[in-house]
């Protein structure tokens, strides 16, 4: 199968590309960032998914499947740019899929969609609304991108679309939201709170994305719908910090807020503190049942892989 990956030069994108190439797929990728030495079977085009050359890629190369990973978070991009990439970019690639006969699309989203708060339940199901819009405004464009991608299910019924909401990824790549939060030797926590954190190994995340391109085990048809994707059971933040070789720095909330981004502490938007106080835990049962996905790395192996990388 000919697969196009947007955002291929990201750490997870490279991993997915390599896995697909190993399985004998023809892999194309587009990214504004370069990837100088991709493995055999992977071709990378440098460019912006919202620009003309991206459409040309769809027209001339005629990929059969799309893996859309070109979304960005508040960690790397500030507001207006981020909105354009996440919303404009997602709209563009889905329109190209429709226009140029792509058969299958995978949107790689995030479990932070559900948001965190004192009254949110453990183990979110896919049908729950995105509370993140309320608790964490910086995530609203990602939430909108997720919902927009899901709307392709009725907008372009001929395109088999799967929206994956992945929990945090962690491991040897040391990339991503959680890795950024755990970067320093001291990790700030809100005094008196110790939420569960759910994460999966980088390799398991890549394997899940690759698996999502294969026919569903239950129907033998391409995957359609919205799916939570997770690995081992969640662990408390204090355990996560300890097992990744960091130290907790518990600070009272009124003190922590003004200190973020200073004194070597990670810079977090205001809403992110809710994610350090309250858990976001998803139920990945449907994805496991339909695709047969099972995680290979348990919580200890994942935390230690990050620590030892």
């Amino acid at each position, binding site marked *: 199968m000919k697969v196009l990956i947007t955002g291929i030069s990201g750490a997870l994108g490279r991993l997915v590309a390599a896995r697909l190439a190993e399985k004998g797929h023809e892999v194309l990728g587009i990214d504004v960032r370069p990837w100088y030495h991709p493995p055999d079977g992977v071709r990378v085009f440098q460019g912006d998914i919202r620009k003309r050359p991206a459409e040309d890629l769809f027209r001339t190369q005629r990929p059969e499947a799309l893996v859309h990973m070109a979304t960005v978070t508040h960690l790397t991009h500030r507001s207006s740019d981020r909105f354009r990439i996440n919303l404009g970019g997602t709209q563009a690639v889905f329109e190209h899929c429709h226009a140029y006969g792509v058969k299958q699309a995978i949107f790689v989203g995030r479990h932070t969609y559900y948001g965190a708060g004192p*009254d949110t*339940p453990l183990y979110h199901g896919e049908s729950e609304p995105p509370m993140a819009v309320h608790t964490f405004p910086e995530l609203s464009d990602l939430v909108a991108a997720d919902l927009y991608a899901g709307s392709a299910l009725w907008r372009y019924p001929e395109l088999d679309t799967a929206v994956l909401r992945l929990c945090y990824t962690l491991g040897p790549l040391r990339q991503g939201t959680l890795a950024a939060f755990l970067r320093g030797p001291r990790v700030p926590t809100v*005094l008196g*709170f110790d939420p*569960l954190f759910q994460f999966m190994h980088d390799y398991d995340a890549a394997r899940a994305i690759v698996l999502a391109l294969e026919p569903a085990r239950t129907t033998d048809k391409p995957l359609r719908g919205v799916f939570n994707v997770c690995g081992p059971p969640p*662990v408390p933040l204090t355990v996560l910090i300890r097992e990744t070789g960091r130290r907790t720095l*518990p600070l009272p909330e009124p003190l922590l807020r003004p200190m973020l981004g200073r004194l070597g502490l990670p810079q977090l938007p205001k809403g992110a503190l809710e994610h350090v*106080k309250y858990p976001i835990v998803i139920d990945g049962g449907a994805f496991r049942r339909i695709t047969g996905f099972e995680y290979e790395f348990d919580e200890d192996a994942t935390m230690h892989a990050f620590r030892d990388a």
Partner: protein
Amino acid sequence: MHPVRAATAANDLGTMIPASLIPLPTDPEVAARVDRIELPWNRHGSDPYGIDKRELAKLYTLLGFFYRRYFDIHVYGTENIPPRGRAMLVGNHSGGWALDGIMVIASMFFELEPPRLAQGMVEKFLQKLPFAAWFSSRIGQFTGLPEHAVRLLEDDRLLMVFPEGARGTAKLFRDRHSLVGFGTGFVRLALQTNTPIVPLAFVGGGEAIPTIANLYRVGRLFGLPYLPVTPYGLAIPLPVSLHILYGAPILLEGSAHDTDDVIAKHVERIKGKIADLMRQGRELRERRRKPEELELG
């Protein structure tokens, strides 16, 4: 404490749980009993909801003192609690705060073989309070959300519900033997998940915490729904005798989608049963009835 854990804890403030600043003792006998709670523990000693064995051991060690020594507790009808599988304990609120729930949790641990963890449906404000949010999450006392209730019952847990809600704990001393309006959610929940309801009566909480007034505005300053006040000031419970009566399980028949009037009949039936158990408990407490004359069925 395990030597490796102790070494880590020494240089890591955050691992000295619960509440990190209040190092509670653990009774080894209680810890051994916690090991026998039949939950899917992983090798860190926690379950998929983040319930932690070590925290439970600290909790029950603390509760053990109140349960066995401080109060004079009498428990009847524990044979009515299913030893395994889903069940819903439904009872009256008695006392200015959730002393009743806490003692029911203790009785499920100290009286049953094997011990069971009763999981309450906690008021939302608790999750906003530092330390309280932390500790309650580790001991399986989650926010009272329908999603939590359904999931826990489908996982064959023992759920504890007080359908009077916060209005129940706000009862004043003079109203201590009354029941305020019941919510109906618990009946739909029981029908939806095919869960037997074990009615329970808690008698004496009103005497333990004789509330004469509830200060709503002051409470809000501390993030509480209200602050109960007793004749001696703070709502510290008195060492009185408490009676807990568990009735025979009731498996309701019908659908979770029945109309409100059908559901209301089920609610009235359960409420009537609880009122009957409360009456018997009060007679016991006032020595007008002997334990062998109880009718729990």
